[in-house]
């Protein structure tokens, strides 16, 4: 609380809530494969934030929030896997195998499916970069890897997406490997 009036703290929490509520719900929901459970996780993230010293958290706010969300979501997922014997495996949530009866509605669905098909770490790095707007160094903090690792994960993820989405460099005429998804 050093340097901030107490009233500011509550207002600040509300501002952070407004700004990060939706992206954190999406992020935790993605890890858990369950939007309802993601609500629990994100609520806990903000309750934790309430207990923190703003001056210490604020300079690294986004990585702090995503890190806490990630840790809690992974804990939840581990616990789920332990408890939910006989339940549809979590991996199916991010499966690359779309249900055949679901029609490809538009380009966005196409992109999201291609994203879902990436390996988990690549997908997380790509999402944190493009969907959540984090810098490599912040993603590295969140995922507990080095920024160099993040660069490689994103690079590979982008490469796979380019192949799946058919986004080829114009100078390279050949069809992308694997064709369009």
């Amino acid at each position, binding site marked *: 609380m050093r340097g901030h009036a107490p009233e500011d703290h509550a207002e600040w929490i509300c501002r952070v809530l407004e700004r990060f*509520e939706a992206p954190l719900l999406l992020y935790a929901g993605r890890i858990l494969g*369950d939007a309802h459970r993601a609500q629990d996780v994100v609520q806990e993230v903000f309750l934790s934030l309430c207990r923190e010293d703003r001056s210490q958290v604020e300079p690294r706010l986004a990585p702090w929030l995503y890190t806490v969300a990630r840790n809690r979501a992974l804990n939840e997922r581990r616990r789920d896997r332990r*408890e939910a014997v006989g339940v549809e495996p979590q991996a199916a949530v991010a499966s690359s195998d779309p249900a055949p009866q679901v029609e490809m509605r538009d380009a966005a669905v196409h992109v999201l499916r291609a994203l879902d098909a990436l390996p988990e770490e690549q997908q997380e790095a790509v999402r944190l970069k493009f969907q959540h707007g984090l810098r490599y160094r912040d993603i590295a903090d969140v995922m507990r890897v080095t920024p160099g690792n993040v660069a490689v994960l994103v690079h590979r993820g982008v490469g796979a997406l380019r192949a799946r989405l058919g986004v080829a460099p114009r100078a390279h005429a050949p069809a992308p490997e694997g064709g369009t998804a």
Partner: protein
Amino acid sequence: VNAPDDDARLTSYALGELSAEEAEAVERRLEGDPAARAVVEAVRAVAAAVAEASAEEGTPRLDAARRDEIRRAAAAAVASRAAPGVPSRASPPGPAKIAGGSMPKYQACPKCAAQFDVSAFAPGQKFTCGACGTVVTAGAGAPAVGGRVPGSVRVPAGGAASGVRGATSSVGQGPQYRPLERHQSREAAPPAAGTPRRERRERRARETDVDAPKKSNAPILVGAAALLLVAGGAAFFLLGKKDDANDAPKVVGGGGGTTPGTPGMGQAPTPEASSGDTLQAVEDDFKQKPEHTSKELASFLRRYKALGSEKAMARAREVADEIVKYADPKDSTQQAVISEAHLTLGHVEFKKEIPEVISYYNEPFIRAVQEANAQRWFGDKEQYELAMRAWRKTEAHAKRLEEDRVYALLTQEKARIARDDDFKNYNYATHFASPYLIFYSSEKEMSEFDLMKKPKVERVKELAELEDERRKWSMILAEKGKIYTQLYQHFLKTYGEECELKDLMAPYGGRPDYPASKRSFQDGVPLIIWIFSNREAFDYHHKKQLKDKDQSTGLENVAGYFSPRTGWVYLYDEANRQFEVDKNVHEGTHQLEYWFQRQKREWATEFRVPQSFFGEGFAEYIGSVEMDPDRNLKFIGWNRSRLRNWQGILKEAETSKKKPPVYPLEEFVKFEGYHEAQAYAASKLGVDPGYGLGVFYIQSWALVYFLNQYPEGKGKYRVQFNRYLNDILNYDEDVERYGWESFRKQFGLKTEADWKALDSEFKKFYLEDLKKVNVGGLAEKPPERDVWPGFVDPEEADPSNPEAPAAAGAPKEGDKPSGSDR
């Protein structure tokens, strides 16, 4: 230089992740390398496509209740940081700032002795002790004394807050309050093997003075769990051993007599057994010293036992008893000795590991296992059998958690509510009736902290009373479970096919087909019902518990409600049984509308059904039931109170030769709010708005009944009604008067003449047919609350015993009640 496609630096460049120097180098390359330029463009195109597509995943929001909880926590954090005595979690340790004057640097709370850095306070300034809540005056109390202070908390500028002395701090975890004496006690080094008994005795005596649980670092819950266990009839776990510890330590001398200890009486012979040992020799050796180390006692124990005579074995048991009483069970080096002593005494060991799958320990049988583990050795066979029974229940519980997804989900939900500040202190019982989790409580609160402070006798008595109260609710809860599960089955059976409703307890709440970003409720949707035992308890909850949460207004005249805010039903039990049963079904119907609407709308949280005739009429129609003595429901649809009211209105109209107040069908279907019905009643029907609302309710029920049953139960319009219900569950907010539009479409009302035709058919039913119905003969009264022939208390059904009698009201798969418990 890598080929462009393989070069991660190009990707990093495209995404603005390179340093200025690195970026410059890449740019130089790009000038002469079109392939590299194309790669950069492609990366940016992918980035844009992903960002754009991500927007399609929507902007989910936390539930309103969760947002409120966060706001409350934020406000509370501000309050606690502003209050002295509550250290900021992230405040780093640092040198204490000493204000001038004669103020002592530290001061102890006069009540709980927690110590505070008051150096920044003005003398006489008051602050609240963060540990016990006592208001303390700075400079007025005795300065804190003694104790090692591993870290102190810096006083924030302005002296607004002070840290608790004695707290420790580390990166990421700020100072935490620990009362000093307990702190010291924990930090005291355990005695080494062979520590003289006098020293151990003194240590025990010191520990006895500490008022907190001494043998464990477990949280208060475990202590409270122990108390609950006492109340549950297993008092043996708590009583014997701790009371013994309070007794003055006994000193055993030679020959089994008791003599004052006289340390330093010369060298004792090494008490090792030899082949030519005699009882006299062992006794002589024993008498050489008034006190023995545990190691020595162990040796004597072996020597006595080796002799094997009855007298020697009696002495062995006395020595074993001594070891059990005074050896330190926390000292790992003494474990073998202690075990041998217990075995000599014929005790049975209890050592069970709570299965990893269990994360919620607040079940009576799990607490019993924990306590039995803490006690470890049992001399009383009956006590041991009780512990083993608790263990069998724990094992069965763990097995079910692993194998039964629904049971695991409801247990998890129960654990969540056990932590909910608004409910956790009530004396409540729980009942599983998939997909429902039903709670029943009085207004009595049972704060574990308050209970811990009470004298033991009073505490045990109070806990026993609370437990007794909960046991009495067992039959009530089983009845509620049966009511709600029948409602659920009826709803699915009647409307499931037409409305494409899925079992809410199926994986992902019945919708595994939703895209990954919309999938939710992986283990199913638990439906929560909270029932208070009477109106007083209901009022207590809303007026006192929720008084600051803006959730208590407008509930003065309601007999219960469903809250779209939480998705729960809140009710209380009534003296009028028929009304009580009906209103459970009524509110349960609202709850099902809400959850099935969410199920159909990708779990969107907004409840979109407006206050139309459908909202109340449908719940009134479904919530008109007949209950037989075994609590089986018949959904008759005849709402006796509405019908009786309506017949009264018709009679009065006849007598006064006035037209009874009836809303024209098309207008009636258009209303989207009670105010619209009231306004119409006042302006067009010429009646008081309040009266008009009552008539609106009656007509709403009557129209839904008509659309489902007319004529004479044949259901001429049932198919259309089911389609209309499906539309309502798919409510489209963007369509003006959606309910009316849908009604018009599903009932084929294209012209004014169509409306008139239906209106006239309904009026015939409403004004003429209903007049002839014999309300008194419609249904039998529900059985009395405490009369249920053949009821088996779920508490009696041992989950580990497959031959245990099935509990009444227990649904089959995944629904078996776990019993009434806390």
